[in-house]
C-alpha cells in the first residue's frame, strides 16, 4: 500500500539530516530509494508476509532519535568493538585502521576505497523496507578486510536503541577480499517501543572465510526488521548464525548467493518466541554456480502465545550441477497457545543435484524425558535439559572457543526465561 501524502512529510522530516550528507551520488540514491518506498509502502498481502503483519508498525508514531547511550552485555569476549546508540557511532576500540573497520558514511565519502563500489549492489530497492533503509540510514558500519588478511579476534558491533518511538535505520557493509578471514558479531539490544530496520551486505571473495553472527536481544516492545544479503565467490566459505532471543516482533530476511564454483555456506538459526512475541525468519539460498554446497539448520521454540515462522527457500539455478543442499527446520511448542508455521521450499532447475529438506513441529519426545527421569533426573530438569540441547544444535557451526561459549550462555539465559514462562 502506498504511503499517504501526509505521512511522507514525516519520513522526510525524520530523514532530512541523514539524507543531506555525503557525496551527490549517494544523496541521489537516497532520494530515489525513498520514492520507491513511498510507492510500494509497507509490505502487506504478498506471500512473503503471509504469516507476519506490520500493521502495528504502521500505527506507531515514529521519530528520528538523538544519539543514545552505550549498553554492553555481560562478559563480552575480547575482540574489536564498535558501539552505536540510536544509530550514532559512540565508541571504537580496535587496533584495526579506520579504513578497515569504521563508519560507512565516512568510507563512502572517499569513493576511492575499494569497498565503496560494492555499496548498494546487493541491497537495492526490491524490498520496500530495504529501500527505506537505503534512504534513511546514518553513519553505518564498514568492514573491509584486504586480500590474505586474517582478523583473528571477533569483531563486535553493538547497536543499542533506548528511546520510545524511535525509528533507527542501520546499515552494514562487509567485504572480504580473496583469501581473507574474519568473524563478525552484530548485537542488537535496547529498551522501549522502537523500530529497528537494518540492512547488511556481505561480499566474500574467493577462498575467503567469514563467520557472521546476528544476535537479537531487543527490548520486549521492540520491532526489528532486518535484511541480510551475501554474495560468495569461488571456493569461499560463509557461516551465518541468527539468534533471535528478544523483541516483540522480529523479522529477518537472509539471502545468500553461492555465485562462485565450490562456494560453501552454513546458515543456522535459533529463535525463541515467548509471551506474545512473533519471530519470523525468511531465508533464501541460491546455488548459482556448480559444485556449491549449503547446510541450513533452524531451531525454533515457541511458548506462551508466541508465534514462530520459518520460511526457507533453496534455489538451484540452471547449470548449477553437483549442487548439494540440505535444510532442516525443527520446532518445539512449549504451550497450548503457541504457534509455529514452517515453509521449507526447494526450487530446482538442474538435474545432477542432491537436495533435501526436513521440517518437524511438535513437543519434546516423551521417551527421551522418560529416559532422563529413569536416571533420577526430575521432570522439570529433564525437560529443560532436552530443550537446551535442542536449541544448542544451532550454534554448532561456530568454531569452538570463547565466542561460542559466550553465545551459548546468551542462548541459555534467554531459554531459561522462556522455559520458566512455558511452565506457568
Amino acid at each position, binding site marked *: 500500500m502506498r504511503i499517504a501524502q501526509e505521512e511522507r512529510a514525516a519520513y522526510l522530516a525524520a530523514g532530512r539530516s541523514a539524507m543531506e550528507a555525503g557525496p551527490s551520488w549517494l544523496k541521489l540514491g537516497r532520494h530515489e530509494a525513498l520514492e520507491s518506498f513511498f510507492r510500494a509502502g509497507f509490505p502487506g498481502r504478498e506471500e512473503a508476509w503471509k504469516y507476519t503483519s506490520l500493521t502495528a508498525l504502521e500505527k506507531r508514531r515514529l521519530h528520528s532519535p538523538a544519539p543514545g547511550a552505550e549498553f554492553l552485555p555481560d562478559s563480552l569476549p575480547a575482540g574489536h568493538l564498535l558501539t552505536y546508540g540510536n544509530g550514532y557511532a559512540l565508541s571504537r576500540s580496535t587496533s584495526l585502521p579506520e579504513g578497515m573497520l569504521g563508519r560507512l558514511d565516512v568510507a563512502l565519502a572517499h569513493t576511492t576505497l575499494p569497498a565503496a563500489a560494492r555499496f548498494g549492489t546487493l541491497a537495492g530497492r526490491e524490498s520496500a523496507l530495504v529501500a527505506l533503509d537505503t534512504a534513511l540510514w546514518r553513519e553505518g558500519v564498514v568492514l573491509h578486510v584486504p586480500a590474505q588478511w586474517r582478523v583473528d579476534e571477533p569483531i563486535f558491533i553493538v547497536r543499542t536503541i533506548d528511546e520510545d518511538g524511535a525509528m533507527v535505520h542501520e546499515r552494514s557493509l562487509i567485504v572480504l577480499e580473496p583469501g581473507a578471514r574474519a568473524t563478525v558479531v552484530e548485537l542488537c539490544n535496547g529498551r522501549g517501543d522502537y523500530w529497528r530496520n537494518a540492512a547488511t551486505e556481505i561480499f566474500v571473495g574467493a577462498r575467503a572465510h567469514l563467520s557472521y553472527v546476528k544476535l537479537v536481544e531487543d527490548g520486549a516492545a521492540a520491532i526489528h526488521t532486518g535484511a541480510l544479503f551475501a554474495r560468495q565467490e569461488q571456493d569461499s566459505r560463509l557461516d551465518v548464525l541468527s539468534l533471535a532471543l528478544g523483541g516483540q516482533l522480529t523479522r529477518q530476511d537472509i539471502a545468500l548467493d553461492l555465485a562462485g564454483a565450490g562456494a560453501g555456506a552454513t546458515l543456522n538459526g535459533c529463535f525463541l518466541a515467548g509471551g506474545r512475541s512473533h519471530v519470523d525468519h525468511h531465508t533464501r539460498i541460491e546455488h548459482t554456480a556448480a559444485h556449491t554446497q549449503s547446510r541450513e539448520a533452524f531451531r525454533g521454540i515457541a511458548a506462551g502465545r508466541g508465534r514462530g515462522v520459518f520460511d526457507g527457500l533453496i534455489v538451484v539455478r540452471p547449470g548449477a550441477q553437483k549442487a548439494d543442499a540440505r535444510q532442516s527446520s525443527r520446532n518445539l511448542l512449549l504451550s497450548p497457545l503457541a504457534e509455529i508455521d514452517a515453509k521449507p*521450499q526447494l526450487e530446482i532447475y538442474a538435474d545432477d543435484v542432491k537436495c533435501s529438506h526436513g521440517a518437524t513441529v511438535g*513437543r519434546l519426545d516423551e521417551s527421551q524425558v522418560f529416559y532422563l527421569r529413569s536416571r533420577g533426573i526430575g521432570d522439570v530438569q529433564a525437560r529443560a535439559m532436552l530443550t537446551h540441547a535442542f536449541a544448542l544444535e544451532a550454534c554448532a557451526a561456530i568454531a569452538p572457543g570463547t565466542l561460542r561459549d559466550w553465545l551459548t550462555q546468551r542462548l541459555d539465559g534467554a531459554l531459561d526465561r522462556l522455559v520458566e514462562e512455558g511452565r506457568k
Partner: protein
Amino acid sequence: MGKSENVGIGDLMQEEYRWGFVTDVEQERVPKGLSEDVVRLISAKKGEPEWLLEWRLAAYRHWRTLSEPHWAKVHHPPIDYQGIHYYAAPKKKAGPSKLADVDPEILATYEKLGIPLKEQEMLAGVAVDAVFDSVSVATTYKEKLASLGIVFCAFSEAVREHPELVRQYLGSVVPHTDNFFASLNAAVFSDGTFVYVPKGVRCPMELSTYFRINANDTGQFERTLIIADEGSQVSYLEGCSAPRRDENQLHAAVVELVALQDAVIKYSTVQNWYPGDKEGRGGIYNFVTKRGDCRGARSRISWTQVETGSAITWKYPSCLLRGDDAVGEFYSVAVTRGRQQADTGTKMIHIGKNTRSTVVSKGISAGEGSNAYRGLVKVLAGADNARNYTQCDSLLMGSRCAAHTFPYLEVKNDSAQVEHEATTGKIGDDQLFYLQSRGLSAEDAVNMIVNGFCKEVFKELPMEFAVEAQKLLAVSLEGAVG
C-alpha cells in the same frame, strides 16, 4: 454444432499419444461464451429444478467477481473464458437405456482406451459409469448395486431421482464460492458421477468412471459427489484420457467426498489427458478442485493419484479431518516431460482430536517438464494429538527440467506432531551401472528404478490400475533418458 471437423484415427501421431483419436459423433452444443443465459440454458437442457438453477446462478455471479489465480508455478497464455463451449453432448437418438442402445462409435472409443464395457460387465468386479464429454452414456451394474441401496449414477440422474440427497450434500465440501475454477464449475457443470453408499454397506465392487474429453473447443466441467454414510465403505476409480488437439482445452472439475462416522472412501485417479506436443502446443489445462470431508468420528479418506498427462495440472486433493480420530491419506505420482507443468499436492486440515494424515508424493521431471509439490498441513488449536507425516521426493531426468517443493506447515496445537521431509536428485549412475551389468538395457534399468521410486504409491492403487499406471509411466518416460 454438426460433425466434429477432424477425423484422424490411425494417422501420424499414434506413437506419441496413443489415445489421440476423435470420435465422429453428432454433437449438440450451446454457443461459445458464458453468460447468465448460458447457465439457464444448460440448466434447462438438463431439466433441472429451480433450486439448482439458483445455485448455479449464484455461483456464476460470484465467479464474475473473482479473478483467475496466478500463484501456482505454471505459465500459460491467458484463457479466453468467452471462447469456450460450455456444454456439449452427443445428440440423443432415443435415449439409450441399455448398453446395446449406445452409439457404437462411442463404444468403439472405449474399446480403444481398453475399457470395453461389455467385457467388464462379464468380467465382474468393476461397474462403469462412462462419461462421454458431458453426458453419461451408459451405466452398468446398476441393479446389483441398487439391491444394496447403493446409488451409482450420472449426476443429472441423481438430481432427478434423489434430489434430497443431492441438495443436502452438493456444495457442502466445495462451496460454490470456493475458488475461481470451482465457482466456474458450479455455474456450468454439465454432468458427472453421484455415489451414495447407505449406512453400514460395504460396496462389493470398485466403482469406476472413465472421463473423456472429445469435442473440439469444449471445456469439460464434471462434478463428482460421493457420500459414504455411517459405517460404509467404497472404493472409486477415475481414469481420464483425451484425444489430441492443438488448442488448449480447459478441464475444471470438482470432486466432493463426504465420509460420515466410521465410513471409508478410497478415491483413485489415473490421469492421462493429452499433454500437448513436444513444443508445448495443445494439451489439457487440468484445473481441478478435489476435497474430502471426514465429517464423522473415525472416518477415513484416501486419495491416490497418478498424473501423467495434461499440459498443466493444478490440483490439490484435500482432506478436512473434522471427526475425532479421522484419517486422511494422499499418495501421488506426478510425471512431467516435454513442456508439461504440474503444480499439485494436498491439504490436510486437522480439526478433530487424534486425527492422523499421511502424505507421500513422488514427482518425476523429464525433458523440460516442471513439477511442483505444494501442500498444506494445518493443525488447528483444538486438534489435540494430531499426527502428520509427509514425504515428497523428486526425481530429475535431464538438465532442463525443474522440480519444486512448497510445503506449508501451520501448527497451533502443542500436542501435535508434524513431520515433513523431501529429497531431490537424479537416478544414480551407480544404480544404472549395476542394473546394466546384470544384463538390463538402459531403458529397462530406468524403468525399474522409476517403478521402485513410485512403489509406495502404486501399492495403494487397486490391481488393474496399478498395472495401467506402470504401463503409462513407461510410455511417458520413453526416450526421456538417453
